[in-house]
């Protein structure tokens, strides 16, 4: 199976020196807002847009190969099924284009019709299919030619949220079954949470961070990432006093002790799970008095919005703990934040 390597891939419209290695058989999620260059990056790998830099499959340069020579399975966001071909002819198209024998074509198409549950739709034209069915045809068509890599451009974005949630896992299992190196583009953090081995965050054509989701959430490298991941408790801050490995920082009237290794700091981030709430005052650093303003109950946890000075901080509690504490709105509470849990973002 194939390892994809991008070296300084740039494009005159959007991409800026993207460097990335996607390991063999990995499901890599590329997250970014719309207009970040995600589709352009996929198209560059597929050879459908011009780019500078190098794209290598298993060390072999793809840069001078036309799209038809790259053995890439590309599934665009709108699926782009051929409207004048039936389901089975759409799936068989790549096989026929590569002049495989008719028995091979027949065998492969039958297999894919079964895997993707399309057997009874085989004679239909794309206009007579639902969005979900079209998506399955598009993926089956891409996989038919046994590509070296699979490129999925927001494959779930055209489906309604309920279907999409169900399809996610199914699609992941299909990808695993084919054991194919996959680059999955999305703007939906939910997809990333459930699916990816590693993720990359693309913002304005720049690949800002690559890693496991947990690593990125716990130490986002840029403010864009924080915004994109919808993280809570992120504030503009100033360093008031630096002392060894720690510094005192200030935001919205709150002074916090935080680990600090020099350099310019723009923002501070505290994850909701790292804010401990109590009725009793805690005699440790970074403890503040606040008022419980709002409670947002989720399935297994709650988000408490607590006003401290001018700031509203969000604390996350397990649902059981919250019920046990029996907190009431407008009640005075104390919160504590371990210094190590405070993230400073340049």
């Amino acid at each position, binding site marked *: 199976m194939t390892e994809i390597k991008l070296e300084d891939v740039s494009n005159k419209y959007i991409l800026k020196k993207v460097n990335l290695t996607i390991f063999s058989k990995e499901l890599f999620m590329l997250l970014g807002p719309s207009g970040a260059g995600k589709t352009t990056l996929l198209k560059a790998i597929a*050879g459908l847009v011009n780019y500078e830099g190098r794209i290598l499959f298993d060390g072999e340069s793809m840069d001078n190969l*036309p799209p038809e020579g790259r053995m890439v399975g590309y599934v665009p966001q709108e699926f782009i099924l051929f409207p004048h071909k039936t389901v089975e002819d759409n799936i068989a198209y790549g096989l026929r*284009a590569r002049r495989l024998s008719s028995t091979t074509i027949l065998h492969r198409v039958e297999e894919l019709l079964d895997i993707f549950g399309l057997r009874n739709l085989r004679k239909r034209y794309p206009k007579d299919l639902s969005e979900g069915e079209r998506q399955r045809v598009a993926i089956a068509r891409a996989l038919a030619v046994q590509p070296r890599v699979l490129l999925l451009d927001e494959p779930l974005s055209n489906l309604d949220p309920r279907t999409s949630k169900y399809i996610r896992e199914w699609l992941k299992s299909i990808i695993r079954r084919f054991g194919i190196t996959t680059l999955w583009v999305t703007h939906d953090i939910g997809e990333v949470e459930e699916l990816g081995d590693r993720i990359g965050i693309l913002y304005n054509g720049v690949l800002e961070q690559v890693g496991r989701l947990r690593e990125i959430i716990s130490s986002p490298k840029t403010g864009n990432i924080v915004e994109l991941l919808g993280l809570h408790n992120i504030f503009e801050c100033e360093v008031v006093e630096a002392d060894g490995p720690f510094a005192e920082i200030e935001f919205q009237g709150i002074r916090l002790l935080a680990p600090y290794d020099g350099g310019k700091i723009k923002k501070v981030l505290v994850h909701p799970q790292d804010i401990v709430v109590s009725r009793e005052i805690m005699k440790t650093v970074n403890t503040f008095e606040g008022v419980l303003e709002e409670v947002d109950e989720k399935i297994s946890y709650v988000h408490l919005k607590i006003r401290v000075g001018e700031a509203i901080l969000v604390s996350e509690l397990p649902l059981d703990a919250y019920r046990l504490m029996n907190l009431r709105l407008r009640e005075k509470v104390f919160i504590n934040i371990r210094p190590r849990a405070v993230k400073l973002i340049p």
Partner: protein
Amino acid sequence: MSYNKLIFRFSWLTPIILLLLSWEILARLNIFPEYLFPSFTKTLLSGYILIRDGVLWINLLASFVRVIAGFLIGSIMGIALGIVMGYKDVVYRTLHPIFSLLMPIPALGWLPLLILWIGVNEALPILLVFICSFFPVLYNTVSGIRSVDKRYVEMARSLGAPFRKAFFDIVIPLALSSVFTGLRLEAGMAWRTIVAAEMIAIPVGIGALMITSQYLMRVDVIMLCLGVLALMTLTSEKLLMLMENKIIKWG
């Protein structure tokens, strides 16, 4: 089929029957002299005589052959050149300005020039129909090809088809509906052009028959010819529509 459905299916006939009936009544009221406004039945009777004597057939066949020949050659060449222009951008950029200049000229505008160049013979009406079919079919083919979403070609290429294969497998079939629109429009236009040409310059054909009838004050024959023309034009368009529906199953 239920009675109601049957009525619905043939409801389009009612206005036509009413029109013919009014024609008949108006003619029989003798408000206008009969030689200027013959009745529907009189026209039908003349039609019968013309068919019996073979006059209508000879003229209709002459027009028909010219339309078919000019239309076929014009469409085939229009489609072929349209494909080349759609395939090669440099051909498009070279020829497009020339065709944009020539296309708006009505086919009949060429008539005086063609009479001088090739004289009055069978080639003249065929060439006129050729001109009136060629440009619009060319235009519709080129614009049909150029309006096919480029992403289909990208998709075909990423699936392993070289550009040429993608062009013929994907672009041409998807441009067909635009090509057929051109063909349908021009089938009607060809009949209009041929009649005008025959009226002006050619001795045999439906147009010639109409002009002769005018000299002989045979309004009934003129009306009959108009009816025949309406039928021929409509039939050509319907035939092409049928062909289109047969070929473009995915539409």
